[in-house]
C-alpha cells in the first residue's frame, strides 16, 4: 500500500498554548483514516494546518511524494486535498448548485476574464462545470436541491452539500471535520454509506469525528490526539483496547 500523506513532527502553538506537539502520522492511499480525541485535543488545528489555513510552526508534510505547498489554501487544494468544516461554511446566499460550481474553480482552465468573453472554449468549460456540479449533487443525494439557496437547506443536506463542494475540487484526500455532528441515527448511517462510496471511488478519506461508533465502524486506522500529542495510531480494535486512549478519551 502506498503512502499518500506523511506528516512529520507538525507543531503549532497559539501564544503560549501548544496546540500541536510533534504530531506525525501517515495516511495510506485508499484508506479511511480516523482522527479522534477529546475536545481541544488539536484535531481541527491539525486540519487547518494541513489545508494551509494556519501556518505551521514546525514539521513537514509530504503529499503524494512531494512536499505540500502549505503557503496558500489555494495551492493545497490544487495539490489534491479538500475539506469540510465542523461549523458548516457554505456560501449561504448562493444556490446549492452554485456552491459546487465554485468548487470547480480550482480545476478550471479558462481564466475568469476569458470566461466573461464567452468564447467557445469558455462556454464549453462552463457547461462542463455545470454538468459535473449536477452529477456531484446527485452523488451526495441532493440532486433535487440544486436551485435552493444553501442557507435554506436542511442541516443534513448542508453537510452533504459541503462534501459535494469539496469533491468538486477533485481531491485525492478528502478531509471531513465532524461530518456527523448534529445528525440523527438515520442520517449518520446514510453518511457512512456515502463516505464508503467516496472511498470506493478512489478518494482517500481523513475523518475527524466524535461519534466513536461511526469512526470505529468506518475507519481502517485511527489516530488519537490528546493535548496536541498523538497517543495512539492503529486499527480500531487495537485503539479501543489501548489503556492510554481509554484513560484520555474513551473512558472506562
Amino acid at each position, binding site marked *: 500500500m502506498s503512502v499518500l500523506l506523511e506528516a512529520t513532527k507538525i507543531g503549532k502553538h497559539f501564544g503560549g498554548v501548544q496546540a500541536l506537539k510533534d504530531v506525525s502520522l501517515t495516511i495510506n492511499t485508499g484508506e479511511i483514516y480516523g482522527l479522534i480525541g477529546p475536545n481541544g485535543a488539536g484535531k481541527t488545528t491539525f486540519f487547518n494546518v494541513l*489545508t494551509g*489555513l494556519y501556518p505551521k510552526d514546525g514539521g513537514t508534510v509530504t503529499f503524494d511524494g512531494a512536499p505540500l505547498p502549505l503557503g*496558500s*489554501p*489555494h495551492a*493545497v*487544494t*490544487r495539490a489534491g486535498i479538500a*475539506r469540510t468544516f465542523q461549523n458548516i*461554511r457554505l*456560501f*449561504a*446566499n*448562493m444556490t446549492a448548485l*452554485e456552491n459546487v*460550481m*465554485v*468548487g470547480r*474553480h*480550482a*480545476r*478550471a482552465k479558462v481564466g*475568469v*476574464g476569458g*470566461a*466573461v468573453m*464567452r468564447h467557445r472554449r469558455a462556454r464549453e468549460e*462552463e457547461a462542463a*462545470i455545470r454538468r459535473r456540479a449536477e452529477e456531484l449533487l446527485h452523488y451526495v443525494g441532493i440532486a433535487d436541491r440544486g436551485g435552493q*439557496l444553501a442557507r435554506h437547506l436542511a442541516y443534513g443536506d448542508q453537510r452533504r452539500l459541503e462534501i459535494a*463542494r469539496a469533491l*468538486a*475540487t477533485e481531491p485525492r484526500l478528502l478531509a471531513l471535520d465532524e461530518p456527523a455532528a448534529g445528525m440523527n441515527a438515520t442520517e449518520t448511517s446514510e453518511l457512512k454509506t456515502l463516505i464508503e462510496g467516496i472511498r470506493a471511488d478512489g478518494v482517500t478519506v481523513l475523518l475527524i469525528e466524535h461519534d466513536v461508533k461511526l469512526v470505529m465502524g468506518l475507519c481502517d486506522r485511527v489516530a488519537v490526539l490528546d493535548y496536541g500529542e498523538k497517543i495512539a495510531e492503529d486499527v480500531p480494535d487495537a485503539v479501543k483496547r489501548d489503556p492510554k486512549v481509554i484513560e484520555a478519551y474513551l473512558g472506562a
Partner: protein
Amino acid sequence: MDIFLQQVFNGLTLGSIYALVALGYTMVYGILGLINFAHGEVVMIGALTALAAANALLALGLPVPLVLLLALLAAALVCMALGFTIERVAYRPLRNAPRLAPLITAIGVSIVLQQLAMLIWGRRYHSVPQLLPSGSHTIFGAQVTEVQMIIMATAALTMLALTQLVNRTRLGRAMRATSESPSIAALMGVDANRIIALTFVIGSGLAALAGVMVSANYGITHYHMGFLLGLKAFTAAVLGGIGNLAGAMVGGVLLGVIEALGAGYIGDLTGGVFGSNYQDVFAFFVLIVVLIFRPSGLMGEKVSERA
C-alpha cells in the same frame, strides 16, 4: 401633471447616472466592506478624459459617432487603469488593517485625484461638445431630450449586462463567493486578489460611463464635479442597501426621481420658503427618513444578490 412627468423623466435620467456610480460603491463594499470614497473622483476623471479625447479627436476632423465611441473608450480605459492602481497602491496594503485606515486613505486618494485633475484641467468649467443627437420629443406633455433617452437606455442595458455577469458567469460566482467568505473562496481556488482587482476595474468602467453621461446631460464639466456626485451615489447605495446590486440600481433611480420631484415641488410645498436650490437637502432628508425606518436600506435584507 406636465411638471410632474417632466420631473419624473429628469429624475430617471439623473437616477440612471446615480445608479451606475452607486454600483461601483456597492460592489466594492460587498466584497471588501470598504467605502471607496475616491469613486466619485474616478467619475470626474472619466468625464474630463472623455472631454479631452473628444476635443482632440474633433480637431482631427473625425466623424462624431466615432469620436463619441473613442472618447468613451479612452475614458473607460483610463478609469479602469485608475481603479486598478488605486486598489493595488492604496487599499491592498491595508487589507488587514483596522477599518478606519482604508477609509481615511480613500479620502486621501479622493483629494489627490481632485488636485491632480485641477492641475491638468484647471479650475474652470469646461463646456462639453454636443456629441449626442440634440433633438427632443414630447411624451405625455413632457419634453424628453434624445440625450436623456440615450442615457436611460444605455444605463439600463449596462445594468442588465452587469446583472448577467454577476449571476451567470464564473467571474460573477467568484465575486459572490469572495464577498461571502474570502478564505473559503480561496480554498476553492478563487484568487481573491484578482477578483478584488477586477471588481475595482468593472466599477471604474461604470464610473467612466457615468462621467460621460453627466457631462452629456449638463453640457459642462469641471474638476470638482466628482464630490457631490459621489456623495449622492453613495447615498443611493445606502438607500438601496449597501452591498446589494439591485439595491444600488433601485436606490440610484429612486434618489434621482426624489431629487427631481423635490426640485420641482419644494417651492410649492414650503410656500416659497425653500427654492429648488434645496433639492440636495431634500434627497438627504429622504435618506435619513428611510434609514430611520429601514436601517439596512430598502433591499438590505435580501442579501442573496450581493456581489
